[in-house]
């Protein structure tokens, strides 16, 4: 069977810097893959290549066996690939409810439901009810991260690429997000690529992790396997995980 | 269509033949010694006003034909007209003047539609000595510098204002509002009106200036309405003029209060297109009306012009003709084409042009120096869509030149 998400020899150069250098990886349907590596390793760049923010200099991305070459961000989104941003991208002057509703914009063209019910359900699930009519720019960092996740999850997609969804968030919201990920994964067999520096969460979520260092795929395996490799300890973890 | 193209072809052929003949003449045979060259500097291409230039040229050409048909001047010497295109540009006008004087040896250089061209050419003329005659350029500077060589046969602003005053006196108006654009033209006329009214006495004047880029002139017109004037003088040029007419109608200033327009814009066909209903009843300054009496030579010219161009001559053409007529009379009186003698004769003699009032170019004060103009008319549209040639002549004001 085709992998749900596959990258084949991706290269991306920014000036003199090779931000991704021949990155190939493949994620099976229903898998939650961890993507770890030191700052500047090229993780966000890879995410940007996958989601069409940047076009690769060489190589290609396939979603469910279908090449994404030449497709714009919005087309890739419509193929069922949802991403979240390391720096949250919300519609600051719009309310929490309106932010959630934008997730249905693309669906409406296909004549599907207008999402009012799902939106309210998601507001209840995330306990954002009291803030439903508050402008997104007035939320705290953690609330924003939660809202961003909620926007991604309110419409079930087949593939999620999440760039540091847990950074700077309190443990309660972290758990809420983890629950949402596991729930969607279980119910829809959705595929995930999760970038994070939090090994405890990676261990809870991911069977397999990919380690990136200096633009390359440095290692791949279970977290415990890769955490034992001397080059990963030296280049990223600093010390072995307990 | 075919027919027209065919005849165009023929006339082009003639034109070509003519040009070649002229070339042969110019290069092979020198112009006949007794011919007298007359220059004509007019705009015949953009950015000048080619229509304005063309009308003057038609009049001047017919004038030369008339003079030559009558046996020329100084006992048989013929006029030869050299036409130069100023393009409305001072530098082109100056070059044209130089060429006419040094190459074509002309006796006089009339023409000049654009004031800037006339002003620039006069600076050179002041050195080269051959007189100029501005036919449709109104800037004060053209004559107020009191150059020996500078003559003019066009209405200067004080004359225009004297015509206003004549009109105000005739109608017995006591309160007059002026809505004036903040340009040299608008403010110049408004201030001159205030000065002349003060001198005459008995008239209260309101001056309401406006920026000519403003499209909503309602605030200005409301002030005027509140002043309750007997007459509104519309001193806008182009589009503001039309906006004032429409907006004054809306707030009820028109048609109850008479309006006088400061120049002859309403003779253009566009006027009735823009004001089919509210254009009637207005008064406007004009420089010519077929209803005003002409001199005998003016009448003859007018007939010849209609025959040739199948339309009535307008001011520009009449003034083009008039210049040639005046020059011919002056050369005969001076018995010479020498510049100094000619200037002397123009300054002292009395000549005849197309209107009924006699032509003189006295060494008068201010802008009246070497300046004669046809009577200024105030025409009145008495009904909608009226042909300007039918408009009632409300005032015919022959300028009284103040003596020094």
């Amino acid at each position, binding site marked *: 069977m085709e992998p749900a998400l596959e990258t084949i020899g991706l290269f991306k150069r920014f000036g003199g810097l090779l931000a991704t250098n021949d990155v190939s990886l493949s994620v099976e349907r229903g898998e939650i893959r961890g993507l770890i590596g030191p700052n500047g390793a090229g993780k966000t760049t890879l995410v940007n290549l996958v989601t069409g923010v940047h076009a690769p200099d060489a190589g290609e991305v396939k979603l469910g066996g279908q090449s994404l070459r030449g497709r714009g961000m919005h087309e890739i*989104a419509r193929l069922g690939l949802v991403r979240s941003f390391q720096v949250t*991208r919300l519609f600051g002057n719009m309310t929490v409810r309106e932010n959630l509703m934008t997730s249905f914009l693309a669906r409406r063209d296909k004549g599907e439901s207008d999402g009012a019910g799902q939106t309210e359900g998601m507001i209840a699930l995330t306990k954002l009810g009291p803030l439903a009519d508050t402008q997104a720019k007035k939320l705290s960092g953690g609330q924003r991260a939660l809202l961003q996740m909620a926007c991604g999850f309110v419409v079930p997609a087949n593939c999620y690429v999440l760039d540091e969804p847990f950074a700077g968030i309190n443990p309660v919201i972290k758990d809420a997000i983890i629950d949402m990920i596991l729930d969607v994964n279980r119910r829809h067999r959705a595929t995930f690529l999760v970038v994070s520096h939090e090994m405890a969460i990676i261990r809870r979520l991911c069977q397999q992790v990919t380690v990136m260092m200096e633009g390359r795929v440095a290692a791949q395996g279970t977290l415990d396997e890769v955490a034992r490799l001397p080059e990963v300890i030296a280049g990223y973890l600093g010390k072995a995980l307990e | 269509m075919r027919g027209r193209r065919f005849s165009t072809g023929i006339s082009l052929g003639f034109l070509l033949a003519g040009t070649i003949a002229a070339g042969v003449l110019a290069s092979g045979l020198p112009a006949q010694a007794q011919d007298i060259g007359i220059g004509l500097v007019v705009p015949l291409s953009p950015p000048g006003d080619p229509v304005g230039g063309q009308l003057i040229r038609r009049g001047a050409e017919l004038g030369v034909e008339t003079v030559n048909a009558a046996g020329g001047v100084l006992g048989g010497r013929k006029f030869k007209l050299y036409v130069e295109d100023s393009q409305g540009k001072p530098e082109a006008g100056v070059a044209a003047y130089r060429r006419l004087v040094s190459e074509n040896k002309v006796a006089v250089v009339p023409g000049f539609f654009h004031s800037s061209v006339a002003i620039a050419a006069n600076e050179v003329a002041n050195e080269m000595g051959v007189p100029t005659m501005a036919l449709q350029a109104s800037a004060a500077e053209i004559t107020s510098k009191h150059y020996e060589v500078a003559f003019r046969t066009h209405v200067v602003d004080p004359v225009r204002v004297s015509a206003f005053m004549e009109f105000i006196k005739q109608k017995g108006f006591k309160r007059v509002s002026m809505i004036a654009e903040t340009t040299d033209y608008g403010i110049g006329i408004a201030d001159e009106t205030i000065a002349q009214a003060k001198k005459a006495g008995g008239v209260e004047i309101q001056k309401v200036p406006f920026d000519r880029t403003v499209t909503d002139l309602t605030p200005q017109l409301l002030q005027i309405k509140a002043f309750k004037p007997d007459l509104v003088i519309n001193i806008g040029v182009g589009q503001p003029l039309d906006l004032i007419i429409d907006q004054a109608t809306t707030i009820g200033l028109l048609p109850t209060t008479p309006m006088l327009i400061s120049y002859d814009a309403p003779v253009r066909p566009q006027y009735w297109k823009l004001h089919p209903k509210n254009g009637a009843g207005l008064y406007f300054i004009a420089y010519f009306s077929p209803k005003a009496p002409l001199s005998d030579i003016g009448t003859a010219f007018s007939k010849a012009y209609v025959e040739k161009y199948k339309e009535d001559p307008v001011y520009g053409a009449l003034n083009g003709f008039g210049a040639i007529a005046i020059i011919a009379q002056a050369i005969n009186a001076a018995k010479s084409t020498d510049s100094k003698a000619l200037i002397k004769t123009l300054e002292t003699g009395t000549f005849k042009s197309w209107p009924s009032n006699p032509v003189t170019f006295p060494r008068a004060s201010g802008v009246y120096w070497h300046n004669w103009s046809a009577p200024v008319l105030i025409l009145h549209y008495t009904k909608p869509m009226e042909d300007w040639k039918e408009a009632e002549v409300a005032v015919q004001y022959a300028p009284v030149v103040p003596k020094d």
Partner: protein
Amino acid sequence: MFSTELVVQTVISGVMIGVLYALMALGITFIYSIMRMINWAMGEFYMIGSYLQYALVALLLGPDLWWLAIPISAAGVFAFGLVVQWSLLKPIFRKPPEARDDYATVVTLALLLLLRSLATGLAGPNQFSPGSNLPVVMVGPMPLAGARVAAFVFALAALALFYCLLRYSWYGLALRATSQSRIGVQTAGIDVQGVDRIAFGVGVALAGLAGALLAPVFLVYPTNGLITTVKGFEIVVIGGLGSIPGALIAGVLLGLIESLGAAFIDSAYQNIYGFALVLLILVLRPTGLFGERGREA
């Protein structure tokens, strides 16, 4: 000179014209908020709207059907806007955003010159008027041209419709989201190029609508969009770039200040009063009365 009647009349006249200026400002602000570019050729779309209105009324429909000509003219400008976005602006927006503003400025300025020369070439430098059969209407003590009242009512209706569509429709949601984050809206599966095209079309159609409405009042000639554009930009600065209520309120404010200044200070400086207000706002509140300080990246 200082009569109550004159004050009331001047105020009415200022409010009426202010709303029409606001229409123009709204077009500028709307295009900016979606596309993050200033369309310097806005006045030329106003001009096209006025010529279309003239052509329709004078040559095709007659003055009694002016109300039919208005939406047709605005739609014509909308269609032309789509073509301009597709042919001239879309290629710019494929480039990375850094130089986009500069390219957009150059392209729209070139368009301004082109359209003006085209208008002069096709119809000459003279002014035209589509004429109007509407009677003069008394608003309190103020007689107003029927065409001007009609323009005012149409403009208010257009502003209300625009606001409702933006506020309560799905497409409005997409437009508002795009104005907040162009990247964000793409991850929601929206084609920003498509949104741009509609936004540019709608923005210039607002200018075209103003042109069509004001054609019988302020005449039709190649540079007639100039002054309305200047007012539009002034309003945008006063009200705050990107704010719709700001455009309406600042429009009325500008209309009032200009009318009152012209009537009671000095009529020669009518254009200066609005400009003074602009300077004052820039000093006191650089983002305008309703402008937002920043936006989500």
